[in-house]
């Protein structure tokens, strides 16, 4: 009995330690984002600040650090990417899964094959293509690159879901004289909303955090997205740690919120393709 209890306790101690290692940096980031540099340098860091919370760190990050500009850019780019990507992949996946036109197997295979291709093979030509169309240093170029890069996975997930759509409602609608588009829009589309949610959440987190494409296509400061803007921000606030950490916290919060609200969708999305395979 005692041995059992001891084992259980040691389990919890070990796990608390692991959790601490995982979460400590994030707690450190959020707590210190409300402190002055002087307080941050004190050690050990008190859990509760001795002085007042430095909300000015956030104000400084937003205004002087231009996080407000980067934030707006990130919202625009992420929003537009999600909107257009969802339309494109939903139409394609629906067509492949439901209507199965001649050659649909080959087409589906092509979309799947994009998952095998590494970005090293595609980045430079796509970069040069964007340059040719004068899309460097524009949000449109960045958005296009994001939409294009993510279609394979999204089509795969949605098509698998479309395959399971029930037929009964459709038959009834056909008798009532509904056309193909009508069935798509009023009957099937509402049914695939759950998988669209999974796709958008995963896409959101990916695009919101994306760094490499932003780095190579955007050089004008006022067009930078948050991850890229943070680099400037870092050199600017090299010594003002509180403001730097406030900036980091601002970038993190949207993904964190989405994750905490929809955490079960992450597991669904992640495991959809891999567990069975």
């Amino acid at each position, binding site marked *: 009995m005692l041995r059992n209890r001891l084992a259980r306790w040691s389990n*919890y101690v070990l*796990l608390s330690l*692991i*959790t601490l290692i*995982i*979460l400590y*940096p994030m707690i*450190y*980031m959020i707590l210190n984002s409300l402190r002055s540099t002087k307080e941050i*340098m004190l*050690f050990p860091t008190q859990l509760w600040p001795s002085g007042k919370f430095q909300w000015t760190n956030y104000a400084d990050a937003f205004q002087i650090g231009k996080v407000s500009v980067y934030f707006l850019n990130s919202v625009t780019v992420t929003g537009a990417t999600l909107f257009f990507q969802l339309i494109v992949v939903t*139409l*394609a996946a629906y*067509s492949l899964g439901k*209507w*199965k*036109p*001649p050659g649909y197997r080959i087409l589906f295979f*092509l*979309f799947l*094959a994009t998952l095998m*291709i590494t*970005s*090293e*093979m*595609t*980045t*430079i*030509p*796509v*970069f040069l*293509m964007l340059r040719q169309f004068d899309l460097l240093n524009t949000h449109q170029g960045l958005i296009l*690159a994001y939409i*294009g*890069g993510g*279609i394979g996975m999204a089509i795969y997930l949605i098509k698998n879901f479309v395959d399971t759509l029930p037929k009964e409602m459709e038959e009834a609608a056909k008798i009532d004289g509904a056309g*193909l588009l009508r069935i798509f829009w009023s009957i099937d589309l509402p049914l695939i909303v759950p998988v669209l949610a999974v796709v958008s959440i995963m896409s959101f987190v990916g695009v*919101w*955090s994306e*760094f*490499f494409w932003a*780095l190579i296509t955007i050089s004008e400061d006022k067009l930078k997205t*948050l*991850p*890229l803007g*943070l680099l400037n921000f*870092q050199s600017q606030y090299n010594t003002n740690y509180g403001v730097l*950490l406030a900036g*980091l916290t601002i*970038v*993190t919060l949207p*993904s964190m919120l*989405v*994750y905490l609200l929809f955490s079960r969708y*992450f597991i669904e999305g*992640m*495991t959809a393709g*891999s*567990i069975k*395979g």
Partner: protein
Amino acid sequence: MTERKTLLAYLFLLPALLLFAAFFLYPVSTSIVRSFTDWNGFNSAFKWVGWRNYETVWSDTHFWEATGRTLKFAFITTIAQTVLGFLIAYFIYSLVSERWKKLLRIAIYTPVILPGAVVSLLWVNMLSPNFGMVNQWLNKLGLGSFARGWLGDTGTAMNMVMAVNTWKFIGMTVTFYIVAMLTIPKEVIESAKIDGAGKGRMMWNIFRPLLTGITEVNFILSLIGGLKAFDLIYMMTGGGPGDSTTVLGIMVYRRAFLSFKFGEAITMGILLFIIILVLTLISRKLMANREG
């Protein structure tokens, strides 16, 4: 299938196919073609140079050093992630309290969601020589002699980026393992318990063999992730100090966007792709054999 339906079906596919052509078909074929030219990426003029880019890259010692570093990075982070991930998943799985289980599962996945830029800058801050959290803790624990500029030291920079990479991505491995563990039938575990299997035996003789499938997925995902690593390293060290953290991703970026040798950069990209492909195939094969 009516003609109208077929037409509509292709119409629905059109946007996705255009994107496929623009972002996969065109770039991959151009990559392969342009790797045989002396193209600098600026003017449209280029000459065929045959295998010259491949020869240049092949005989470039920097390329091989970067390849070595990339392999080291990928293998060490993959092994750390798989072994630690398995252990952590097992501990979480065997917890009694459902609430704790859920809480820990969410907590451990959080760093995976964090933007790479945030993770990098946060750790740069914590590893900073003067009042970084890590050195402060070492001083506090009386281990001050170990304190150093972790990322500015050629001896430790690589280890630090590997540690941070593992910290960020281990939640993915753990989650995959836990989800797979939940599919193991309870009877198997119960009967092993009745036979008196201890924790170690249980992990090694029951869980490990039953989870080979997911181990393979984890292994390959981490390996590919490690071979392509760019964000974290670029922001934490920029490839330095010296060349100590210059992995292939960083080298390709520098060749293309800083020295404008697009032909060579594309060639390196193709070689990196081949390395990834070969390693993936080999690891699949090895694991399939062990299973059989």
